[in-house]
């Protein structure tokens, strides 16, 4: 769990960890052996949930998931994923008709399908109600029971039961 004030660099840190940003100074070290971080985690991929959700507005919830399911090649169960994020009733609706919270839930369902060991989530609780935050905590619990880990940037809404270490980013005063 990465915490810190606005502008302290949470998003930047996550983007570097996810391999999206390559222009940084300093060295990236991790405990996953010598292989590159990108490919080092056992499944070879990262489940990424950023501010941009990776959903197509013109497709329905189920179509969006079907495409990502094909991409991930894990043949996950779409209806189970939708069940877990409580979107079964709206699965046929195009994404542009959904509320911000529903979109966030749909993006979580995408993450479930990815089957990655490593989740990197930037403000997963954005736009979610308290039930939604509880949902994330449950999903994280299940993810950790399956041996997965997650790196999460978040404010205080999410407090998972799974074993968690906290990092707080501070703005360094540049005198």
């Amino acid at each position: 769990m990465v915490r810190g004030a606005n502008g302290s660099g949470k998003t930047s840190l996550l983007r570097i960890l996810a391999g999206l940003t390559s222009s940084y100074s300093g060295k990236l070290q991790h405990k996953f052996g010598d292989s590159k971080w990108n490919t080092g985690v056992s499944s070879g991929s990262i489940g990424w949930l950023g501010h941009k959700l990776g959903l197509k507005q013109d497709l329905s919830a189920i179509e969006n998931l079907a495409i990502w399911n094909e991409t991930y090649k894990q043949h996950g169960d779409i209806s189970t994923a939708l069940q877990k994020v409580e979107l079964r009733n709206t699965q046929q609706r195009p994404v542009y008709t959904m509320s911000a919270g529903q979109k966030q839930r749909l993006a979580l369902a995408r993450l479930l399908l990815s089957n990655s060991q490593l989740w990197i989530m930037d403000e997963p609780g954005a736009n979610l109600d308290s039930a939604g935050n509880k949902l994330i905590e449950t999903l994280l619990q299940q993810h950790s029971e399956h041996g997965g880990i997650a790196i999460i940037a978040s404010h205080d809404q999410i407090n998972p039961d799974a074993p968690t270490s906290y990092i707080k980013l501070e703005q360094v005063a540049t005198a």
Partner: protein
Amino acid sequence: MLSYFANPVRFKTLSKWVAPILGIGAAVLIIPSWIMALFIVPADYQQGDTFRIMYVHVPAVFAASGAYAFLAIASFFSFVWRHPLADTAARVAAPIGAAFTFLGLFTGALWGKPMWGAYWVWDARLTSTLVMLFLFLGYMAIRAAIRDENISARIGAIAAMAGAINLPIVKYSVEWWSSLHQSASINLSGSEIDNSMSTTLFVGIIGYFCLFGWLVINNMLSELDTRRTRALVIRSSDQRPSTASKQSTGNPDA
């Protein structure tokens, strides 16, 4: 060797010497070349005195091509080694190169009127110089459109390199195209050139290159100062709200 000069501080000390040398060199070469062009070189037996504009035109076009080559090479260094100084060089070279290109085109048009009877002829040289002007302008447009300095530098570098790879192809196609309907085109190497003419031209070209170098270095210095000022302004405006967080040390939250 390049990395030795890539240090901004070293660049500044070095440029204190190099810039005046280039500036004086430009003045010492260009002004005499004009005097020679206007008073010493004999008038052309066909074109009379109008051909004397060549001594402004040809060096400008040479310097413009040199400027594009400079832009492409600086972009390459900036892209591969991500050095900010190479990027600054590329960034300031573009408008200067565009200005030389424009000067070349404009004087070419003025020369074209008495030569071909028209200000503009779609001659291969003129046309490919025009294409080069658009490459400079496109580079400047894309640099200006991207706010983030880092992304702007790298995207701009790719655009400049893509242009440089394509420029020979464009040049060849334009030559092929204009050779289809060849009517009146000049061929400098074919016509007889007086010795004093080629000397004057040579002096002029070297002078223009010195001028280009002098302009690039001076603009780089002012660009570096602007960036430093901007960084200081941002930093000092950040200072006030961050004093609170200065006291708190890196305690874990829980």
